[in-house]
């Protein structure tokens, strides 16, 4: 049996939305859910009622994501919310992140799992500082596909000249931050989330626009891991040794359990275990009771090897031809997530794939201003700061550059005293 392929099922896409309520972000999400018939009658009736109560004529679709507003009123931390819809051919997970500057950490969190970002622009306002911030962060966290949604076109009389000008402005700025140079996929869609123009349905008001609707883009965008060649990376999560089993055949069973973070592996492939460097061959690949010939990115499987090698959680199995030297120093971009500032004097824990190491700050090279992209010299880092930094590690880690591999290039920083996750790092 091979890795499953399903031609009717176009898999799953994770995307994020960047923007503020003022840009119509909640309305956009509400519109997507509504037009794909994800919203059920009882929910709709409820928001109809609330809309009437607030004196509105049409149903206010932004009420679907009203949780955020309530939080703001109560002063609770505004947080990433996850929402779901399906078109029958593809399932979608939306990470809905608040867009304000003080929520950089939430944007980074939402971006970390997204393969596409929708950046909202209010057609009346054009490219703003926040547009730059959102684009920079989406770029930093390695989102390969960007949709610039020029919203509220109804408020500028669906004027093509407005759309064209915003596109030109954005492209000029994208060039500045290197988005274009690196071959990012950037698309522009004029829309009115309020009226449902160019979200799921097209619009009579914008016959000058021949490009795809937002949903067309979402349905067609390539899935994660399918656009560029990646090395096989298999961090071992758990070792299965059922020695006490009633079945004597299992007494020598050693299954290395984990998820294929990237690349693919087949029975017979030569592999190397890092950091020990020991080599073997793949004897079998299992998923539940099924035996597979090969496994691909994102599949959780169990690997059996030809040779008896001591392997435990935290080790990484790679193809011998794609092995890398483990490192004891990390150069990275780091987003600080905690209200407690980063202290260069302290020891932290770095978790990378399934491995942990104690770590100390080597140097903070610079902090980057997310609005101007200016590099600043600093002594410490506060919440929402993004910096180029180096760490010294107690244990070797098997990292790839984040630009090459989002799974093995990412790490989190943990404060041992609270066990809190305080930093998010991307290997340079």
């Amino acid at each position, binding site marked *: 049996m091979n890795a499953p392929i399903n031609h009717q099922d176009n898999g799953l896409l994770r995307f994020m939305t960047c923007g503020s309520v003022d840009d119509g972000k909640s309305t956009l999400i509400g519109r997507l859910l509504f037009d794909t018939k994800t919203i059920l*009658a009882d929910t709709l009736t409820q928001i109809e009622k609330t809309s009437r109560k607030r004196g509105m004529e049409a149903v206010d679709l932004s009420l679907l994501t*009203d949780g955020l507003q309530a939080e703001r009123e109560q002063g609770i931390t505004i947080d990433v919310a996850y929402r*779901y819809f399906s078109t029958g051919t*593809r399932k979608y997970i939306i990470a809905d992140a608040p867009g304000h500057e003080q929520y950089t950490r939430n944007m980074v969190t939402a971006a970390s799992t997204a393969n596409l970002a929708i950046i909202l622009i209010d057609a009346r306002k054009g490219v703003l500082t926040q547009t730059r911030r959102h684009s920079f962060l989406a770029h930093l966290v390695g989102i390969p596909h960007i949709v610039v949604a020029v919203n509220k076109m109804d408020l500028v009389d669906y004027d093509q000249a407005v759309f064209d000008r915003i596109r030109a402005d954005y492209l000029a700025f994208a060039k500045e931050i290197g988005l274009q140079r690196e071959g990012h996929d950037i698309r522009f869609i004029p829309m009115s989330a309020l009226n449902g123009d160019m979200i799921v349905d097209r619009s009579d008001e914008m016959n000058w626009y021949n490009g795809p609707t937002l949903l067309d883009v979402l349905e067609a965008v390539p899935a994660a891991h399918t656009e560029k060649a990646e090395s096989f990376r298999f961090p071992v999560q758990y070792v299965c040794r059922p020695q006490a089993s009633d079945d004597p055949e299992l007494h020598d069973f050693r299954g290395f359990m984990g998820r294929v973070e990237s690349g693919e592996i087949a029975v017979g492939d030569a592999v190397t275990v890092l950091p020990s460097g020991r080599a073997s061959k793949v004897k079998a690949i299992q998923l539940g009771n099924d035996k597979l010939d090969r496994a691909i990115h994102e599949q959780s499987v169990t690997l059996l090897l030809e040779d008896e090698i001591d392997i435990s959680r935290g080790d990484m199995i790679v193809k011998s031809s*794609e092995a890398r030297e483990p490192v004891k120093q990390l150069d990275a971009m780091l987003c600080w997530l905690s209200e407690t500032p980063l202290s260069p004097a302290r020891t932290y824990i770095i978790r990378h794939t399934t491995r942990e190491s104690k770590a100390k700050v080597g140097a903070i090279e610079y902090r980057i201003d997310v609005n101007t992209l200016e590099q600043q010299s600093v002594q410490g880092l506060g919440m929402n700061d993004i910096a180029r930094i180096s760490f010294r590690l107690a244990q070797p880690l098997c990292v790839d550059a984040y630009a090459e591999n989002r799974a093995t290039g990412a790490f989190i920083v943990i404060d041992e005293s609270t066990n809190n996750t305080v930093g998010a790092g991307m290997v340079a």
Partner: protein
Amino acid sequence: MTTLTRQTLSHLDWLEAEAIHILREVAGQCERPVLLFSGGKDSVCLLRLAEKAFRPGKFPFPLMHIDTGHNYKEVVEFRDKRAAELGERLIVRSVEDSIKRGTVVLKHEGESRNKHQSVTLLEAIAEFEFDACIGGARRDEEKARAKERIMSFRDEFGQWDPKNQRPELWNLYNARSHKGENIRAFPISNWTEMDVWQYIEREGLELPSIYFAHQRDVVLRGGAIVPVNVPLASGEVINLPKPGEEIVDMQVRFRTVGDITCTAPVVSDADNVAKIVLETATTTITERGATRLDDQTSDASMEQRKKEGYF
């Protein structure tokens, strides 16, 4: 030497792989996890995922059910049967015992025991020193859950502090806790009700019979269908009709199977999984809106059913 692989997993395979990864992270990071198994459809999926994650080994955790004493006997029987088939250890702790200990005090005899489960759960966590509880909750169940983490930290009082959640990035889960604290882990956070039913169909999973259409005595109360005269495993009969209520024999099924006193069925003739998948695809009522008396916030459900000519 790197390889470009254009293939992708189907959405169910992706969700399955993610859930297996989360289960293995709990097993890898925590000393004493437990999987909460009620016999309901979501936890039935969890058990299949645990099989795929850990076989041919034993599960690295026991199963546990917090029994309110007011569960459908079909579900309780199914729970015991399934645990026995898997050969895994099942711990049952009951709200009844907490009542006897005096740690749960009911306002009146008939009060729903559903919310008191948390007391019994915390007592069990302390008794067994569990540092992680794996549950089948999903983010699509209600608005408040849309922001829940996959690994959600609870302090020593079992409290969830929405202001103080750990950021969760990539698939780097942080399940660390100090003694006395614990983690709630939700491997099927990203699943919807539809995904659950599609998975049950694909995997051919067995479920308690009350998930499928059956005849049942009910009354219509405050816009909901309320099952009445329900026999418990003990022989006791609960949910007696109130004076003046008319008992109707109706064809119904349950979309969720919680505590009897707060779970309502829906009118349905879906008597197999394929029909339920179809019904789930075309339903106009959310899972909780239709079936949970405890957190019902909408009066649309009955209105909508009436519009469609049920009565």
